[in-house]
């Protein structure tokens, strides 16, 4: 349980970090919070030849509201975001999901952006980014680009990032005023990866649903936006029957895998159950906010 030897670099600027990534390509791994990477290294499932530790790049340690979007730098710890008043005000879906990421000791080190870069298919934060239609910013040798959530996540633990790119920022669109939200998940124990989880955003206009967002984790190789279920809700009057129909649509849309923690059938089933519960809770919040 000791990591293999590696060459260690701790650059002070994004430019230096990108130059190191450019020089070492896929031999290098970026170390931010290290709460996913270091376990893999300790178990020698990962043996990067070069570690680029970005913890000294202080310009990446920020959390700010920026024109209706919450911008989090690559060094913003999950615990800092969880406790942030800005997150509570502008992006409560993110705050609710953060409280279920690992344990406090993990969140004290783990970063929001690092979780997105790791792209675990059962991670909460990837699904939140997908639900809200957020973006990430990547800086590479060719310059800076913005990547939408649906283009970032490719497969299990795989993103569309080039190995020579550094994720510097995540941008979560704030929920418009009057929008209800809910994050629901089922895990075996508190802090475990979810067997399935769902994030919902729900806006009402004149008693009908004006906008619905449903994003799921743990039910496929990437976070899933339940587009058909979302469409089935828009324009409809909220009711238990409507939630049940949306839950059925979600079950039809997801293709979970079974493993030792839960069968595919069970995951599909609870994806629907959680959707129903999340929609009901989001409706209550939307009405409270109206």
């Amino acid at each position: 349980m000791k990591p293999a030897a590696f060459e260690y670099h701790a650059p002070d600027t994004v430019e230096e970090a990108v130059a190191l990534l450019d020089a070492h390509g896929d031999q290098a791994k970026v170390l931010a919070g290290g709460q996913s990477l270091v376990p893999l290294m300790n178990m020698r499932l990962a043996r990067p030849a070069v570690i680029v530790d970005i913890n000294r790049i202080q310009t990446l340690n920020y959390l700010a509201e920026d024109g209706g979007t919450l911008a989090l730098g690559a060094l913003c710890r999950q615990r800092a975001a969880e406790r942030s008043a800005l997150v509570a005000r502008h992006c409560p879906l993110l705050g609710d999901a953060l409280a279920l990421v690992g344990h406090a000791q993990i969140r004290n080190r783990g970063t929001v952006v690092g979780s997105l870069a790791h792209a675990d298919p059962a991670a909460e934060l990837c699904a939140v980014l997908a639900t809200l239609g957020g973006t990430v910013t990547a800086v590479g040798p060719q310059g800076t680009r913005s990547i939408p959530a649906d283009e970032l996540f490719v497969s299990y633990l795989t993103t569309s990032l080039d190995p020579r790119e550094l994720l510097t920022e995540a941008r979560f669109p704030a929920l418009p005023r009057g929008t209800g939200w809910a994050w629901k998940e089922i895990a075996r124990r508190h802090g475990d990866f979810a067997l399935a989880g769902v994030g919902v955003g729900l806006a009402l206009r004149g008693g009908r649903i004006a906008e619905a967002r449903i994003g799921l984790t743990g039910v496929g190789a990437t976070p899933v936006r339940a587009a058909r279920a979302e469409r089935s809700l828009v324009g409809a009057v909220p009711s238990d029957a409507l939630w049940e129909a949306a839950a059925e649509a979600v079950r039809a849309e997801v293709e979970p895998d079974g493993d030792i923690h839960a069968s595919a059938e069970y995951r599909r089933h609870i994806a629907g159950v959680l959707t129903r519960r999340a929609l009901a809770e989001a409706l209550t919040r939307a009405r409270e906010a109206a």
Partner: protein
Amino acid sequence: MPTREITLRINGTTYAGRAEPRKTLADFIREDCGLTGTHLGCEHGVCGACTILMDGDAVRSCLMFAVQAEGAELMTVEGLADGDRLHPIQQAYWEHHALQCGFCTPGFLMTTLAFLRDTPRPTEREIREGLSGNLCRCTGYQNIVRAVAAAADVLAAAPDAGVRRAPALPDGCVPPTSAGAAKTRAAGRARTPAPKGRTAKTKPSARPKPKRPAGRRRRA
């Protein structure tokens, strides 16, 4: 592989040593600083036995490399007791039989220290959630929960009883090292535990850690 110079502070004492970058902070604390109170269970961030405070935050020392703690202010289980006098949290664990084999206890104690600082009057549910990142293979959780509740009462009655916090540092900030002080201790091969002199300890700070400036965007 080349080694690097590492200087950090643990329980108020400065330690300086050399280690390969791949050496975890937990191993550095145990092997190079001689502080073996921090235990290693799973070594991949699940069991919580290696929990320490780094700049005031509870972290898993098996999931960091020692080089990353350069200049950091750490607190380990050895920093809890005041000489022969147990810390109120240790005392509560003792009184409530919150340890059986005791292997997980250092991690539980450090988690409890940070948890009660952040949640001084916890409900039982909050206690269970707060401890969820630590595993006890003897499964003595019931008494651990009781001990934490009792410690919360004691600390609430005497707020200066020991929940101390290092000076505020932004996330990931590496402060300048305080090497060169007379207290600097060579962390080396010698495995003798560091003698504990009260003079070398940091005094409990009456100043609470300011809130993180989460709302400000810091671009250099």
